[in-house]
């Protein structure tokens, strides 16, 4: 698989570390249920999936990659952090 790093160009997935789907926003209260859902529950879609990858063995940027989990087709990749 080749992940198109917005900074470095397409690279083999061995250069990346995957962290899972981009879920709902991280809660900031004390609601244990909200935390449970955030930490444990996953959409786990079969289809276009927004997910975190870090170009760990490259530029170390965390990316949000949109990838079809059925075909592995990459539909987009952008830095998780917009600098400026």
């Amino acid at each position, binding site marked *: 698989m080749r992940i198109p790093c917005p*900074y*470095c160009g397409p690279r083999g997935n061995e250069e990346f570390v995957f962290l899972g789907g981009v879920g709902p926003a991280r809660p900031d209260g004390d609601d244990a249920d909200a935390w449970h859902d955030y930490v444990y529950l996953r959409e786990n879609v079969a289809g276009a999936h927004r997910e975190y990858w870090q170009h760990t063995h*490259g530029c170390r940027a965390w990316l949000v990659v949109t990838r079809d989990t059925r075909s592995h087709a990459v539909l987009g990749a952008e830095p998780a952090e917009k600098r400026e």
Partner: protein
Amino acid sequence: MSDVVVTERRDLSLAMILVRRGTLAAVEDAMRGRYGLELPAAGRCTTGGGVTLLWHGPDRFLAMRDGGDATLASELASAFVAAAYVVEASASRLVLAVSGTGAGEALSRHLPIDLHPRVFTPGSVALTRSAHIDVLVWREADAPCFGLACASSYRDSFRRSLSLR
């Protein structure tokens, strides 16, 4: 490929430059003013005033200068004032120079990136991985030579992976 020569560059000053967010322009000005040097774009390096600046991730640069007098970091720090953090890095990396007409071909055995001269033009930089070791590789802008750097603790294994003992 027998003409490939690999040398370890020992007498170097290295410094990591972390640009604070929103201050890129200030750092650019400082670099221009102090060294007459442009900040490299992603995947590029620039050289001037004896200093080479290697892109090292978003808003990060590795500065390199011949001579291990360790003044580079403080010099840069004073040039940037608060616009960037400068971290002494001279001891952090093994740096190799790979030269010779067969250098690109020899390196392409080891590096997963495309080193074709049409793609990896002079002044190109890449952060990648070889033999399970993270490496920084660049093609010198003004010499038929590649630079390679990896964390200094991997020195022996990295040299060995390139079949250098």
